[in-house]
């Protein structure tokens, strides 16, 4: 089922949670709503589910206006961050709940319900735990039960509110891969909310980045990661180094260095912020050109194939984070406290009057 969101506005008292949101989600898509806390992503999800009512705008399911339908009529599967399992019911009772509460004429027979529960237990790989109570399960198991419970009613849309937020890192990674595989099998239109960019980049077909109740950018993980439209998106999608500078007629000056930026040829003496990912910081022992900035190594973390360095620029005193491959690191034989030269590559420059960190 496709979902269309048109001009959704939502206020909580004087606080504007969502401003004029327009979004189309096509059938079978897995979309991530990504944003920092307070960006309105959960509110948007709850409005899609019918758990919250928008002040303005409408929601269309399959092209039909569903704005006035309540949560029971929308037939969506909703998965909560803290599972919201029924504590006094066993795993199988939890899963069967949505089928058992149906009115008599649409309710499947006890046998059919049992079969459905069994099928879902197989799907979530908890066959042996059918008679356990939620308190006897681990967090990851509980979330899988919550998912099975939502899937039991065969919803046409699956909505997940920070589904892995309460789990530890390893389980979270396992479970999100599992969710991706599950989605590929079932092809149910899914929307999930997360504040974890890695999770969104890893799982989603499309990412919608929200900030301050507005959509900053949407697109495939590659699009938003490689071509961020705003400094916010660039900053939010990974570690970055900030270089403050001034931009004038296609040249940006950052501390002691100057670089060409042809895309801002007509800018006249503007404040600019340049972003560089840590893996785009080149390190040399000797300056090889005027684009190199002198810096001192403060700290080295050399666990794993990538070596993380923290450096302090000699010219401005700003901190710079860099990542090197193990080979490069060993070739350079770097040590903490040494003076080196760094060169930022592949800068993303945004002119921003109102943006500051």
């Amino acid at each position, binding site marked *: 089922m496709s979902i269309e969101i048109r001009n959704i506005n939502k206020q909580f008292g004087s606080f504007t949670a969502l401003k004029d949101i327009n979004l189309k989600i096509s059938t079978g898509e897995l979309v991530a709503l990504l944003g920092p806390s307070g960006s309105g992503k959960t509110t948007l999800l709850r409005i899609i*589910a*019918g*758990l919250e009512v928008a002040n303005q705008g409408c929601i269309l399911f399959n092209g039909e206006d569903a704005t006035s339908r*309540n*949560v*029971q009529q*929308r*037939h*969506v*599967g*909703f998965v*909560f961050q*803290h599972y*919201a*399992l*029924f*504590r*006094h*019911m*066993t795993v199988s009772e939890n899963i069967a*709940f*949505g089928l058992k*509460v*149906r009115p008599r004429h649409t309710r499947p027979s006890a046998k059919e319900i049992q079969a459905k529960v069994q099928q879902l237990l197989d799907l979530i790989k908890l066959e042996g735990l059918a008679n*356990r*109570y939620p*308190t*006897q399960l681990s967090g990851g198991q509980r979330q899988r039960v*919550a998912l099975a*419970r*939502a899937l*039991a*009613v065969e919803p046409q849309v699956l909505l997940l509110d920070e589904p892995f937020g309460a789990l530890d890192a390893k389980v979270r990674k396992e479970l999100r891969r599992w969710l991706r595989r599950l989605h590929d099998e079932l092809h149910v239109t899914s929307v999930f909310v997360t504040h974890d960019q890695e999770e969104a980049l890893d799982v989603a077909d499309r990412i919608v980045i929200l900030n301050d109740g507005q959509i900053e950018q949407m697109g495939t993980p590659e699009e938003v990661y490689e071509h961020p439209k705003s400094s916010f998106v660039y900053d939010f999608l990974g570690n970055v180094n900030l270089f403050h500078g001034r931009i004038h007629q296609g040249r940006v000056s950052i501390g002691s260095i100057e670089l060409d930026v042809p895309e801002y040829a007509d800018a006249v003496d503007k404040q600019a912020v340049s972003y560089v990912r840590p893996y785009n910081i080149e390190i040399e022992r000797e300056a090889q050109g005027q684009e190199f900035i002198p810096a001192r190594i403060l700290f080295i973390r050399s666990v794993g194939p990538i070596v993380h360095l923290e450096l302090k620029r000699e010219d401005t005193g700003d901190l710079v984070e860099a990542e090197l491959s193990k080979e490069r690191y060993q070739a350079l034989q770097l040590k903490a406290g040494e003076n080196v030269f760094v060169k930022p590559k592949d800068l993303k420059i945004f002119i921003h009057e109102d943006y500051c960190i």
Partner: protein
Amino acid sequence: MPLRPLEIKKYSILPGFGLTMGFTLMYMGFLVVLPLSTVFIQTAGIDWTQFWNIVAAPRLVASYKLSFGAAFIAALINTIFGLLVAWVLVRYSFPGKRVIDGLIDLPFALPTAVAGITLTTLYAPHGWLGKYFTFLALKAAFTPLGVVIALTFIGLPFVVRMVQPVLETLDQEREEAAASLGADRLQTFTKVIFPELLPALLAGFALAFARALGEYGSVVFISGNMPMRTEITPLLIMTKLEQFDYAGANAIASVMLIVSFMLLLLVNILQWWSINRHTDH
């Protein structure tokens, strides 16, 4: 087999287990066990035949029926309406909410005789409320119905105060989950909320029931104390005491004590079951 030291106390940064435990035992001994045991000691002064003649007298059997029956009905009424009051106080906000919340405790604080007098005035055949009962060809004051009214009045706070904190901690996400799975409002309440409240409701019921069983002050005014009809058991204990029949009074008291103890035990077992049935295995 090596002997393992009995481990009762755990390491704590606040010591004092021995002192506090000793005090607790002494306190409970002097305040609860000792007075209650005298009931049985005093009763032991008479033999079984005498005991039976006292406690199975028709007038007493009638009073047991009224005392236990009215206390049970009153506790039941309080369980239903106490839940409603607690629900309103927790789920909604409205002007005057704090006042109502404070009023709940009034039956606790009020001297029971005051409650008795006011209720009797209200429900007497010509009282403000009593005249409507008369209109319906019913009598409230000086009938078992009056006893139920008085016991309902004094038992109200127990259920409300037991259910309120549980309702407050109840996670609304579960209700939302139930609704998203297609459950209607009644199903959400009966299948999701009610089972969570059951232990607190049972505890509130038990307390209201126990309080109603022992109630004396507010009932003796409204009941009219007619033998075989509106006499409650505590009143008969008083009557025996006034006649200096200590053995008789203690015999009745021991019956009350044993029955209420068993009833409380039953409710506690029910409560324990309702809490633990979804965790034990």
